[in-house]
């Protein structure tokens, strides 16, 4: 008898759980929403959690700043919830599907997939649902062409721009682009689609400027690189461009030091350029450089405001105060600024209310952050001047060079190092056109409305 009762109770418990599990999309209220929903796909567990946690902190802190200090975007406050992806594609897709219908009457303006495979899987789904995805410094390079990829926004800094900026930084050191001729530049890359993505632009730039382009793959995960660095010792390149991922970066720095390659002649890529990448290398990391669209530092005006209004008041999402102003924290702030500005732009056309994905797409494609506007926000120096259009979903294409002093990153480049986008864009458009042909997509006309 008691066991039957137990069973009945258990059944009730399961039923309650099942009810609670019904996605909230069904409860969406029909009434006019006053607040803007902004779902966050996060990875707080899993292999990359340590790099993700400061990103959400930056993002959430900026949203809180908008809500608390500025009273929302033109009075429309933001609210958000999190969905855990573990950086895994199927979890990311599930999150996207869970949140895409909006919440409490507010549509989803922008989705930030935070994961390269997730963003690829969402390429077509976001078009069907008319929700723009912003992928800063990851995602398909060809999606710069908004005529073919209307809802993918690889804003700021693609991998092609990354490669080109590094070459241009080397040219600056050497004293001009003509000095690139005859140099040997080796790219040590993570042997994955991500790592191989810079091969085409580097090949093209090598032909244009006459430097020797050496490509050296490191198999995943890259915790043993003696062979690669022995090869470098033998080939004696002038510079090494390090496109690492995870554990590969500190191991590369350590192995380079062991084989006697000068660390200050290694320039890391975006994903080899955070505190988390270089700190494990220890003392030998001193002098290591990296290119980034996310300059580190807590001196930017907006970071001072965040510190005063959010962090010092105990409202911050940041658990470890040391991360304030780190590359990843700042990347979250930058991403939040761009999202908020896109929503603001969309509001300027469609009214001060929660905007839909389609309206945010217009906002993004007409987004213009010039020096003056960036100063107003307090983000000059933190975010590069940016102008997006249908044909150009990247907009910026410049990075800053950071150098590790053993404790923290310092910006060593003179402002933003621009990439040769005018040279590379035709190649990118060619690839986008090939994709359109393969998929049978008719590109949108390039007319702004």
């Amino acid at each position: 008898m008691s066991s039957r009762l137990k069973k009945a109770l258990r059944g009730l418990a399961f039923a309650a759980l099942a009810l609670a599990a019904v996605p909230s999309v069904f409860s969406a209220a029909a009434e006019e929403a006053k607040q803007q929903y902004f779902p966050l796909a996060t990875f707080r567990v899993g292999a990359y959690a340590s790099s993700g946690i400061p990103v959400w902190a930056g993002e959430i802190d900026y949203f809180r700043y908008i809500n608390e200090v500025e009273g929302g975007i033109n009075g429309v406050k933001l609210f958000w919830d999190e969905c855990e992806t573990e950086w895994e594609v199927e979890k990311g897709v599930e999150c996207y599907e869970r949140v895409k219908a909006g919440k409490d009457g507010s549509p989803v303006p922008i989705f930030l997939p935070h994961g390269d495979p997730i963003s690829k899987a969402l390429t077509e789904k976001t078009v069907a649902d008319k929700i723009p995805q912003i992928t800063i410094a990851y995602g398909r390079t060809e999606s710069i062409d908004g005529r073919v990829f209307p809802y993918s926004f690889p804003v700021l800094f693609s991998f092609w721009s990354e490669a080109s900026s590094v070459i241009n930084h080397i040219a600056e050191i050497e004293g001009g682009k003509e000095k690139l001729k005859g140099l040997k530049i080796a790219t040590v890359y993570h042997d994955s689609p991500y790592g191989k993505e810079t091969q085409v632009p580097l090949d093209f730039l090598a032909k244009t400027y006459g430097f020797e382009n050496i490509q050296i793959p490191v198999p995943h995960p890259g915790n043993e690189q003696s062979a690669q660095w022995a090869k470098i010792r033998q080939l004696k390149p002038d510079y090494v461009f390090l496109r690492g991922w995870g554990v590969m970066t500190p191991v590369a720095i350590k192995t380079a030091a062991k084989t006697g390659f000068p660390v200050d002649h290694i320039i890391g890529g975006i994903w080899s350029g955070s505190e988390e990448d270089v700190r494990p290398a220890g003392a030998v990391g001193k002098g290591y450089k990296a290119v980034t669209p996310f300059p580190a530092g807590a001196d930017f005006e907006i970071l001072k405001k965040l510190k005063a209004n959010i962090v010092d008041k105990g409202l911050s999402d940041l658990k470890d105060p040391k991360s304030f102003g780190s590359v990843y924290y700042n990347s979250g702030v930058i991403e939040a600024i761009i999202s908020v500005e896109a929503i603001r732009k969309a509001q300027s056309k469609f009214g001060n209310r929660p905007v839909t994905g389609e309206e945010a797409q217009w906002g993004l494609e007409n987004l213009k952050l010039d020096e003056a506007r960036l100063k107003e926000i307090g983000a000059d120096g933190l975010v590069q001047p940016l102008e997006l259009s249908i044909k150009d979903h990247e907009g910026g294409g410049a990075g800053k060079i950071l150098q590790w002093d053993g404790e923290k990153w310092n910006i060593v480049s003179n402002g933003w190092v621009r990439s040769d986008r005018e040279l590379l864009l035709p190649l990118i458009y060619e690839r986008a056109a090939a994709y359109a042909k393969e998929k049978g997509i008719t590109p949108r006309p390039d007319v702004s409305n």
Partner: protein
Amino acid sequence: MTALAAPAPPETVESPEVLRRWRVGPLAIAGLVLAFYALGFVVHDYWFNAILIPFLIMALAGLGLNLLTGYAGQASLGTGAFMSVGAFATYNVLLRLPDLPLPVSLVIGGLFGALAGVIFGLPSLRIKGFYLTASTLAAQFFLPWLFNQYGWFSNYTTSGSISAPKLVFLGADLSTPLGRYLLTLTSVVILTWLAWNLVTSQVGRNWMAIRDMDTAAAVAGIPIAFNKLASFAISSFIIAIAGALWAFAYLGTVDARSFDLDRSFTVLFIIIIGGMGSIAGAFIGSAFVILVPILISNVSANLFAGAIDAGQSENLQKILFGALIVYFLIKEPNGLYALLLRARRRLALWPLKS
């Protein structure tokens, strides 16, 4: 003979008696399938894109591996690699031979998978057990590397990713959530039916004989080499189709990373948790491995959002899921399917004995 009064053999997962019992319900199964199709026309996008499609595809991959591991006794960690063969082969067939109808392309993709399975199954003729598992790891490392290394496989896209050309069959556009669901469901129903017939036929009995003791099977006149390779071929065929569906019906765009060792482990866990050597086990296991974390995550999002720190909540969910696996495997080491059979037996006697 009868005087010996041999005790009735314990009812294991694959005992013929159970098989027969499940046979009594072909109508019920047909009804279930119909219901699934009907369901297709009423439910929300979320259910297709996030729940039903991945559940069905992973069940199909589990089914493929179950034929190899659960029925023929050949352990494999190459599932992810065989899925990638299916995805990349189907992609190239769709791209380069656009006139072929979609099902034919899928089958060709599956045949390439079968070929890869046979090649990487060759070591099974000489080695067994853990050693064989280690040798299938070679497939797991070699094949995704191959697809990543040579741009031809991904039609020279810069990101090395592949994306399905338009999914069309008989003029119907299958790229909507409903279309992709029906494509997946139809493939799963057909392949499950084939697998079911296979394991209840002579071939299936041969495989089980080899699994239980290959020397005895050889003595009984079962061609060992042929059957082992056949099990690799058929299992990889099904897995490759699952891979193609994973790439095109579920995700849309993938690269070789989507088929890494983690994927192989997931499929292996599906059959361990669901039940080795049973068709239903693959489905139950897939439901558990794919759906339970989503359920937990939805529950906690609706009940505890804001109340618990987000990072803590995620870790708690992981702990809960792990604890559930441990609990069920202690309750029934033969998997959830065996648990279900036990429950069914008890229910049959229910009013008399609680």
